[in-house]
């Protein structure tokens, strides 16, 4: 415990946390740009999400008459919980006190905390859309969370740990081993990530129809700086899942010490991995269409099945008698 919790390590953890917050809009912009290119449009500049956030900050806030204090507190809670959850995922360096503070189950819990308040905020104003969004979000979450934990368990059984840094260490230490369980866990986690971050085919982040919204329906009443926080939190969540998938399944490149060179390599590696993931996401969103809401359970049950098969595969094929 003591070797991780040093002032330098805390310093790097803080830097990493800031990087999550500062780089999150960039990934969103990158995905939008890729999507636009794939659709033969020129698209907005990659830095557009920063401008959007800045502009939202400069707008006055409109709050409905019927809103309670919870409505105005929720953006801060959602943002903070998501940010802290992201801070526990090793980004460029694997030596982090934050991943000791909160292991991957706590990470899931923190995301759930954010979601809880997001859904409550959606129901606060008392319009039908908010309630609809909250109801759907909780349905998706209820199905996604067990699938996510199933995938996590598969990893944890392999690495004998739920500490993310230990999991990544175990992955790096094992070298190239073809594990069926990891393949399934990866597939499950990808499906869960798509559902949880509200991407196509589960939810459409750029929809303009109230009746088809999930995430957007919950934040329909937000404006100004509150909306900026909510949007930013969603972007951080997207980066979080991207980094989680990239660093767990393809950990190579991540820095194992605080040497500047190693850190630079780590940063470059994660940037490249995220760029590739973003491009893949953009491509898949271009090809796929949004599903009906009641097809989503089948989609997430597939994720759960993959998680289960990963676990069974681990027990049956990998451990031996």
């Amino acid at each position: 415990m003591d070797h991780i919790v040093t002032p330098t390590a805390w310093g790097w953890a803080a830097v990493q946390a800031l990087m999550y917050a500062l780089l999150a809009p960039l990934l969103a912009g990158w995905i939008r740009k890729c999507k636009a290119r794939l659709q033969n449009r020129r698209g907005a500049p990659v830095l557009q999400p920063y401008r959007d956030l800045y502009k939202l900050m400069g707008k006055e806030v409109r709050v409905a008459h019927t809103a309670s204090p919870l409505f105005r507190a929720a953006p801060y809670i959602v943002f903070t919980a998501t940010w802290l959850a992201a801070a526990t995922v090793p980004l460029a360096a694997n030596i982090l006190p934050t991943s000791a503070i909160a292991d991957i189950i706590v990470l899931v819990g923190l995301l759930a905390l954010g979601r809880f308040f997001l859904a409550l905020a959606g129901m606060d104003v008392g319009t039908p859309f908010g309630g609809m969004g909250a109801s759907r979000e909780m349905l998706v979450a209820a199905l996604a969370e067990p699938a996510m934990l199933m995938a996590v368990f598969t990893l944890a059984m392999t690495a004998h740990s739920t500490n993310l840094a230990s999991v990544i260490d175990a992955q790096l230490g094992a070298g190239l081993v073809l594990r069926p369980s990891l393949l399934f866990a990866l597939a499950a986690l990808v499906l869960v990530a798509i559902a949880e971050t509200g991407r196509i085919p589960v939810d459409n982040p750029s929809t303009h129809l109230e009746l088809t919204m999930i995430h957007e329906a919950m934040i329909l009443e937000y404006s100004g700086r509150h909306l900026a926080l909510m949007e930013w939190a969603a972007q951080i969540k997207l980066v979080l899942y991207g980094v989680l998938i990239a660093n767990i399944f393809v950990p190579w490149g991540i820095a194992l010490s605080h040497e500047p060179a190693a850190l630079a390599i780590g940063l470059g590696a994660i940037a490249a991995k995220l760029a590739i993931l973003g491009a893949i996401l953009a491509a898949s969103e271009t090809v796929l269409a949004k599903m009906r809401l009641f097809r989503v359970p089948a989609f997430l049950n597939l994720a759960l099945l993959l998680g289960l098969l990963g676990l069974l595969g681990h027990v049956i094929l990998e451990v031996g008698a």
Partner: protein
Amino acid sequence: MTSALWLAALAVALAFASGAVSLFAGRAPRLLRFQAMPLVALSGAAAAAAGLAALWQGGSVGAELPLGLPWLPWRLRLDALAGFFLLVIGLVTAAVGVYGPAYVRHLEHGRDSLPALGGFTALFLAGMMLVVLADDAFGFMVAWELMSLASYFLVVFQHEQAANRRAALLYLIMAHVGGLAILLGFGVLAAFGGGFDFDSMRAAQLPFAWASVAFCLAFLGFGMKAGLVPLHAWLPEAHPVAPSHISALMSGVMLKVAVYGFIRVVFDLTGQAHWQWGVAVLAIGSISALMGVLYALMQHDLKRLLAYHSVENIGIIFIGLGLSLLFLSDGHTLLGVLGLVAALYHTLNHALFKGLLFLGAGAILHSAHERDLEHMGGLLRRMPWTGLFFLVGCLSISALPPFNGFVSEWLTFQAALQAWQLDSGVLRSLVPVAAATLALTGALAAACFVKVYGIAFLGRARSRHVRRARPVPLGMRAGQGMLAILCVAFGVLPMSVVAMLDAVPVQILGAGLPQISAHGWLWLTPVAPETASYSAPLVVVLLAALAALTAWVWRRGAVRRVRRGDPWDCGFAPPTPRMQYTASAFAQPIRRVYGLLFHVDEGVETQADGSARFHSTIGDRAWGLFYLPVVAAVEASARRIVRLQSGNVRVYLGWTLATLLVLLWIIS
């Protein structure tokens, strides 16, 4: 240690005193408010103090009461396990005692019998404390029945409504079937131990078959009281109909007494654990957790919903116990201890947050006269303190960090994740399935409490009563506040709680969890720091720091003007409260996904005046699957036996003679 036992005795005595005082409440109704309820609070405080002292000092102390039969004296014993459960009882009871005076006030002018309420509350409390303190089967059963019967009268307290009487009767029957199973279980143990006291039972060596019989009987009996699926059907009927502070006691505490009984018999008295037991407990626990939360989601009566959540949480506790049994049977004592600690922690947590939520439901009932979620809305602005405390309860029960429910579920997950250490591959693959069920349960619980809080406290009021709701009196707020503070404290400082809990496994399993506290009070490390660690204090500090930072930056950088306006109405008419999502609508997608598990009866009827009405009720499948067949069998056998009833006195006398002859023949 003797002082702890004296404190416990004081707690029981105070409970009886409260009962004695409230006998006079018929003539002076204020006695209940100003004497009996404070005595209940004091009794709770004394019990909590006794429990803490017992946990702190470890070891055990016994005493013999000059009661009972000449050759069968009542024995009391206060050890760490009993102390822990005394603490659980005491904490909730104290809060209920503080909350109670204001709540019972509105009963003073009603027709309900106040002496009955106060007297049976006191007996109920004393019964629970004595169950925990009893050191022989005889005393245990007497106290158990005292608890069951007293709570029956509390359930039937508002007996004008037929539904309440039916619920109470069901409860009475189930309680007695369960009591019978427990009695038989003790009989098996006593037969091998040669005595009714727990010491000789503990010393007995049971063959596997008989030990399993005892286990099954105990599981059946205590499981029935605890409300495990499929024996839970009485629970959502009985708990909601009692007065709210009693519901808090029943759901928060009485179910825990059943958990105590199960731990005492299975972990302490029968000794050696077997993996078959572990699998059975784990499976039933998982099913209970899942079914409990799914049925809870479908309820729109707030108290009934909370009662179904008790089924869920008891399931989670039994998942922890099942894991513990599995690990113990495999020889992994430390992991067994981890499972047990997780279960105990969840027991404590559930008592706190379920007590809190029932008190909150009581507060709503008190000030808005409403139990139905469909008529609530906007209560946060009308009852801000209750709203805040209820939010804490919701966050805790949904297992969200950094609240207490999360810590115990996290520990359960950690225990489940050590399944790779089990020898059997099949068990290795079954345990994670149980863990996935637990994950699903947690997520569904969060959905359910978003529904409860969002519908009841947020949005706009859906009925006139609710629109006129006012904040509840100070005492009621204080009672909720105590429990809310404890929920937060036990979530933020898990290390202190675990250190306190450690005495229990040390006493009954002979081993503690040295590793869990090896890294100071900041870090919770159940197995090893590399495996998993959680630092709730730091999570809270970081959350607060990040929130403060965000708020500071945001408020400096952004435009600070806030304008109030109307919500978005799509350009049509402004939304009315009736256009809000309802509780049923919120749960509809989940109902559709898990439709198989519910007994749904819905449809649209056209009224005589041409208007259409939609009705939808969701029944418990357990009724059709388990209860109605039993009822049918009982009725069928009754129809056979009724032939004896000819109405002729001489025939009856003949039967008596025949019975006498047979009995004499048997004993000769």
